[in-house]
């Protein structure tokens, strides 16, 4: 890029105790809270205003969603393990745990695909009714976030890991920030699951 160094990308600024990347990711998550917050508010408003509102179980497969919840929580655990491995200077274990995280993400999307295709086969589309409209919109947007997180995690599993050779601390910070995003995506699902499937 240039000869000039931007400070506090790797080391914390002493008086704030934070790296710039850490602040950046938390600000981004704040905006994400507002994005999903608006959608949850939409859900509440539509449901309160509706004459009838179906139970999630009338349309949705609770068993598959429960498995998916477990898959996603597991992926959050492996994400933490990946980061902790880097902290302990165990790069091989990092590779393993990060790989598992990506695989869990893939598993989540596959199960989601099974759910979606079953809906389409039985003639249930977003336009069928408002419940399915909000279900498809929110889960699809969440699915895109899972996909985005997987792209980032795959990058840090593969080509991005080269940074480990030159700057261990910087790479560990990056994985931590990717982890924060991944946990957030997990957390959104923790809200989506009861709201859409159980209530």
């Amino acid at each position: 890029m240039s000869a000039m160094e931007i400070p506090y990308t790797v080391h914390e600024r002493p008086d704030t105790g934070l790296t710039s990347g850490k602040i950046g990711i938390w600000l981004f998550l704040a905006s994400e809270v507002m994005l999903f917050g608006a959608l949850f508010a939409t859900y509440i408003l539509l449901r309160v205003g509706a004459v009838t509102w179906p139970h999630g179980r009338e349309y949705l497969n609770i068993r598959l969603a429960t498995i998916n919840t477990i898959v996603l929580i597991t992926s959050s655990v492996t994400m933490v393990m990946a980061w902790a491995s880097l902290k302990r200077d165990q790069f091989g274990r990092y590779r393993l745990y990060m790989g598992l995280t990506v695989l869990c993400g893939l598993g989540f999307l596959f199960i989601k695909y099974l759910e979606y295709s079953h809906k389409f086969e039985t003639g249930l589309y977003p336009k069928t009714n408002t419940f399915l409209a909000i279900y498809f919109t929110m889960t699809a947007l969440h699915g895109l976030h899972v996909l985005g997180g997987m792209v980032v995690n795959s990058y840090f599993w593969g080509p991005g890991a080269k940074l480990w050779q030159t700057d261990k601390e910087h790479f560990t910070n990056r994985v931590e920030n990717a982890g924060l995003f991944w946990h957030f995506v997990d957390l959104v699902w923790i809200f989506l699951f009861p709201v859409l499937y159980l209530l």
Partner: protein
Amino acid sequence: MGSTDMTNGRTVHAAEHGHDAHHEELGFWRTYVFSTDHKTIGIQYAITGMVFLLFGFCLMMLMRWQLAFPGRAIPLIGRLLGDARAPGGTMLPTFYNELGAMHGTIMVFMGIVPLAVGGFGNFVLPLQIGAPDMSFPRINMASYWFFFLGGVTMFSSFFVTGGAAQSGWTSYTPLADIATTGQTIWILGMVLLITSSLLGAINFITTTIQLRAKGLTFFRFPFFVWSQFVTAFLLLLAFPPLEAAAVLQLMDRVAGTSFFLPSGLVVSGQALQVSGGGNPLLWQHLFWFLAHPEVYVLILPAMGIVAEIIANNTRKPLWGYRSMVYSLIFLGFMSFIVWAHHMFMTGMGTRMASFFQTTTMIISIPSVVILTSLIISLWGGSIRFNTAMLFALAFLPMFGIGGLTGLPLGLNVTDIPLHDTYYVIGHFHYVVAPGTIFALFAGVYYWYPKATGRAMSETLGKWHFWPSLVCMNGVFLPMLFLGLAGVSRRLADGGATYQFAQGALHYNKASSFAAWGLAVAQIPFIVNFFWSLKHGAKTEPNHWHATTLEWAAAPSPPGHGNFKEPPVVTRGPYEYSVPGAATDFTPQNATGSAA
């Protein structure tokens, strides 16, 4: 426009070699087009923003013809618009609606915000806090290119079947749900613009917190830095709900959902074949949840610019700096809980209305505190009346009129007869046009020497200022009268077919002639802007004898990395005319005691 940008960049480039020996050579594309330097990105933002402002203004001048002379062919250019828009040169109502919707969208999202935040924020903020660049330079570049793509997308919507979006800049549903393809493009354009501002906001906040110079505590920030800092929070938190709303509207339009379509909706006498169950008001809530903070995104940077220029040209500290900062933060917070004062007419109920009119009255207090502080700051100053200062001074009463005319709209009872009339148009244009845009002009005149190393012509500047001041009022004052006479906004004939409006229609003509006069008044500015690049008087680094770091510590134009060595801040932002000091300004990085 591209060539100016290059000339601008070349000056920057030439100066770099003067003092920055270890600078590595970047190619043409990396230096001028895909640059990660905050100054280049700021200039790119500013120039693109100004082009869009001019374009949005041109759309408006076409509309003004239709309002002044409804049904008459537009002279000269009317036939160029094509038969789909203006057969025989006479504007169709649908084309008028396109112009109206796109004028608002372009001015707000692609003109003023990019210039005020993307342009001035990017260029000035890192310099004022003594930073070498933004925290995330590549994200900064991405922010500009998302904005550029969003702009191109919006612009392209004029050329799709059915033309551009026609449902107003507010894109109210259910109208927008069933509008032509242009509306879909509008949504996609908005998503790109939202992405751009999200990336920018994260960068601004992080940079302000992390890259402050040593000794620059928060209460030593110039007021401009505070204004950008609070604005960034508004952009960060208010835009995502609009993104959510845009996704929902896109689903309605593309996937056939009914988020904003109620059951049993009848369009043109036909029941609409949709599942229904949606809520049109939901869109308004989500939209205004963004759009009211957006109003403060338009005004806060303007206040920041004006505060800098007033402190500098009165040669006095700002009066009540701390209370101004607290007011700014309070404004930012309150701007999230006033949105439904745009919706008094929707039948949302008196209880909601009284809550929102109360918060609206409360939010006017910090605005008045800031405006009053700026006015009192003038007291006893030996004022330098340069062009930047004239625009900054004009901002005060113009914004004052804008604010005061807003009070009747914030109260439920008085809003009802005024809602959706030209009074509303007059009110918010007083805030944004002679208010914010004057502040932005002031900023251009003030920071131009920093960006180019040359000053703009004061003579041409005054030829720009005085006619603009007269014409701005000529455009918007009649609108207040029109609105009080009950004439609705968004009428393609300006009210010509309404019996009750006949007595007020002459105001339309006055307003139109003033608008075209305003266009003529911008010629000295455009000439000045380009002429001064080559022929403006060369300036010393601290052209205005200012205290803030961009003037006191950086060369003009600053090279890559901005400062030869990181500045160390020793004092507050506005130590002008300190008794006993050698000069009438003591820079923030001055060593030793002021006296």
